[in-house]
């Protein structure tokens, strides 16, 4: 899985989006020191990111250190870690911000210090970064929506959906909903309701139970990974085999469920690739050969076929036995 490129991306240039390809670096000219900040590594989504970061750093032969803030409630901690990175004289900082607004001070500081910053996975819009790579959550919503429209057209079913996109205020949950709405526009798919809520399994469990109650006509669940963990059991239990399930994003668990044909599909954002690209971008920024168009948009992949090849899997998810590693050395 060492060769992952060239990888198709979209780049932004003066507000216009164009299709392009991302060409991975062969190696770094020096063992650069880079620092990565992620919200946490407490689930398999961020494990995939960890995998991509570490593997890519090892491939390029650079010295990468990962800091996790311990959860989305720990913004002050991420701000601290950003400062620590700045003062430990790293060559670049990679960050998946807990909140873009919350790190705006930090971004400014990095710019003032002349240290290139790359944002990845969690989108930023205004921040003065040297480069950024992410998938639009909105596009993931669109993909899921389009897919459902197709399926519905193919087998003539009429989907009544309740969405469980995640916590309100996270930004990405709202964006995904917007995209989903766009994706299903004009079709006979109805979005009955959207239930925002904390992405704990127990919380999602009661949301799903209550929604099945509130909307007896609902026959499709679209939501976060914990939602789906919870929903599988509930749907099975009440014997509603007419209820289909669609994952909002991809994790190793979702893939497993797909392979067991428990869910219709998932929309993966190439988490591993994004992480790898971010590392490459950092090296490019350090070495001064950052492409002029520095904002990369990875098109999400809709995975609906249970027989995904192993090579392909490693573009999305960490290997099953991957354990979090915090340093590439």
């Amino acid at each position, binding site marked *: 899985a060492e060769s992952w490129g060239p990888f198709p991306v979209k780049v932004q240039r003066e507000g216009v989006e164009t299709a392009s390809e991302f060409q991975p670096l062969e190696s770094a000219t020096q063992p650069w020191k880079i620092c990565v900040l992620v919200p*946490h*590594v*407490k*689930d*398999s989504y961020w*494990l995939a990111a960890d995998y991509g970061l570490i593997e890519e750093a090892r491939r390029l032969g650079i010295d990468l250190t990962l800091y996790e803030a311990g959860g989305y409630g720990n913004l002050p901690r991420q701000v601290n870690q950003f400062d620590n990175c700045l003062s430990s004289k790293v060559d670049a900082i990679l960050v998946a911000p807990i909140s873009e607004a919350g790190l705006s001070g930090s971004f400014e500081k990095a710019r003032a210090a002349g240290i290139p910053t790359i944002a990845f996975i969690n989108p930023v819009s205004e921040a003065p970064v040297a480069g950024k790579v992410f998938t639009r959550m909105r596009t993931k919503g669109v993909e899921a929506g389009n897919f459902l429209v197709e399926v519905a057209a193919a087998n003539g079913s009429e989907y009544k959906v309740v969405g469980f996109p995640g916590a*309100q205020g996270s930004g990405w949950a709202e964006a995904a909903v917007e995209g989903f709405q766009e994706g299903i526009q004009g079709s006979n798919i109805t979005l009955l*309701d959207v239930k*925002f*809520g*904390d992405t*704990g*399994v*127990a*919380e999602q*469990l*009661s*949301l799903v*139970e*209550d929604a*099945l*109650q*509130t909307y*007896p006509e609902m026959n499709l669940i679209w939501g976060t990974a*914990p939602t789906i*963990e*919870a929903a*599988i*059991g509930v749907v*099975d*239990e*009440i014997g509603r085999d007419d209820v289909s399930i669609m994952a909002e994003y991809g994790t*190793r*668990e979702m893939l*497993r469920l797909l392979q067991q044909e428990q869910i219709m599909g998932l929309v993966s954002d190439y988490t591993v690739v994004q992480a790898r690209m971010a590392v490459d971008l950092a090296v490019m920024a350090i070495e001064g050969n950052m492409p002029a168009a520095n904002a990369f948009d990875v098109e999400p992949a809709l995975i609906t076929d249970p027989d995904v090849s192993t090579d392909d899997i490693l573009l999305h998810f960490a290997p099953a036995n991957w*354990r*979090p590693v915090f340093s590439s050395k």
Partner: protein
Amino acid sequence: MTFAPNSAPVLRLRDRLFAFNERVGLALPLSVLIVTGMLLAEPRFVAKMNMFNVLRDFSVITLAALGQMLVLVTGRFDLSVGAIVALASVTTASVSNQLMLVFPDMIGFVAVLGVLAGLSVGAIAGVGNGWLISTLKLDAFIATIATSSIILGAVFVWTYGVPVYGVPKVLTQWVGRGQIFGLPGLLYLTLVAVFIVWFVLERTAYGRHILAVGSNEAAAEIAGISPKAIICGVFAASGFFAALVGVYFTARMGSGQSALGANTAMQAITAAVIGGVSLRGGSGNPIKVMFGGLFLAVVGNALNLARVDSKFQVLVFGVVLLAAAFLDRATDRAARQEGQR
């Protein structure tokens, strides 16, 4: 609260209200009120499946609250129950998962062992808490925050936050989705647990000793009761009940989840306080706590069905909690004045 001073009928009404709260608690009638209201306003509320949901929520809250109540009765807190829920969940899943590889033909046996393993780690963690609090005499509030951090850390070191799959189907079938006479199996378990706790507190010497330690620890010690044994016991019970919740979620979801239990401690304390448990220790009634759990479950469900924003739901809980505590305080004061007359 404002009452017309010295106007007899009002006072009598107040006294009667207090007396009622003392005996039964207000959670039950309030729950009934909400249920009735919902029946009229929202026919889906009575749908069989919704009742199922309410009863299951009720069971989970009540189980956790029962353990918490025992700890509160001794005048202490247990904030580590959330961590224990996660620990028990992951343990049950891992143990049964591993054992299945060894004994592929004895699924029932494996499932039982898995459940036992989950429940035991819960109880053991509880005993650990109890030891810190009774022997080292640490402040329970902060000590359980610390152990909670340790337990959760350990759970993540173990699982990296990845769900543990491979829970035996029997567990999902029987524990997670089991039904008896058309009602969730967990409900019966909860009712039995309420009965057992009630029985222990009201009908056994050990229960008396728990109440005595909460009421006057020094006097209990002089009476030959070992506060250490009692405190370790109640924390073990609290850990055990939390583990029950964890095992149940595991069975229901078919996987061990380290992200469970974030709200369990606060929910349990809230239910206990609504159920009239005094934080000063020395008294607690599992039946009332059960009604407290029912109240929380009903309110939560009603708010969801009524599509109230989850942000406002939090507000409702805060207000309800304060009101319950107030009422209890007033009742208590009334009781004390009665004693002096």
